[in-house]
């Protein structure tokens, strides 16, 4: 495609010249410093999240293993826990102690999994923000 001479001359004649180049670079450097600070802060947050995830995972594994070990080590025909006071409700709790313990453990594990997934999503979101 050929250039239109008149337009080309108009554009070239009106090519802008900037006298504040040093100020522009100084301002850019300041922005870059600010962005770098934010980037470092976000990276530190991601590292902290990862650490929390590892700690939560380890605590979950250890407490889960201890709890399951305890449940398995007690005789199957005896309740896991009993109460000094014998009321209807507490008696029911003691009778169903294994079922209640299993439900509690399942709930804890579910919460742990949800927390890990949420942390992973947060980390991915932060990484995407850093890249954008």
């Amino acid at each position, binding site marked *: *495609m050929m*250039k*239109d001479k*008149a*337009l*080309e001359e*108009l*554009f*070239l004649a*009106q*090519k*802008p*010249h*900037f006298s504040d*180049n040093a100020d*522009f*670079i100084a*301002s*850019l*450097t300041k*922005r*870059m410093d600010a*962005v770098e600070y934010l*980037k470092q802060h976000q990276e530190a947050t991601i590292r902290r999240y990862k650490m929390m995830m590892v700690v939560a995972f380890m605590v979950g594994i250890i407490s889960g293993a201890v709890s399951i070990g305890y449940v398995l080590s007690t005789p199957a025909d005896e309740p896991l826990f009993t109460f000094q006071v014998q009321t209807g409700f507490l008696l029911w709790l003691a009778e169903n102690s294994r079922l209640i313990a299993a439900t509690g453990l399942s709930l804890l594990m579910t919460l742990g999994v949800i927390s890990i997934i949420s942390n992973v999503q947060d980390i991915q979101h932060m990484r995407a923000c*850093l*890249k954008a």
Partner: protein
Amino acid sequence: MTREVFIAHVEREQEALRGFLLALCCGKKDDADDLAQDALVKAYLSCAGYQDKGKFRSWLFKIAYNTFLNHKASLRCTESIDEARALVSSTHADSEFEHQDLYLALRTLPPKERSAITLFYLNGYNIKEIAAITDTSEDAVKKQLSRGRDKLKEKLKL
């Protein structure tokens, strides 16, 4: 690319980049400089993935072009008010702005035509390079250039 190398490249290319954005912003220097800084910060954040093949300027222009389009999209609601205000003020302040006629004529072009015309006439890119910068086909660039040129010639009475 290290920060020092990046700044050295930018020092070399900043005039061209600012001139390009100044034309896209139709002479609004503050807007153009803001966009240039935004684009350069984006470029800095993604410069780890940049492979130096001697096309730093085109790469910067591509980022600047996308930054400009995003900026335009975010201002779509207030744009007509701004344009009306600018047109009213231009009748009183013609002498205050250098290149006023060209910028007023550029303002009447849609952003994509304005970009193609500016890259072609001001920055001297060819159609293939413009297509790469604006992520469009060469045919589309040819159409934008043709339409933009006709509108500009009519407005500027060339």
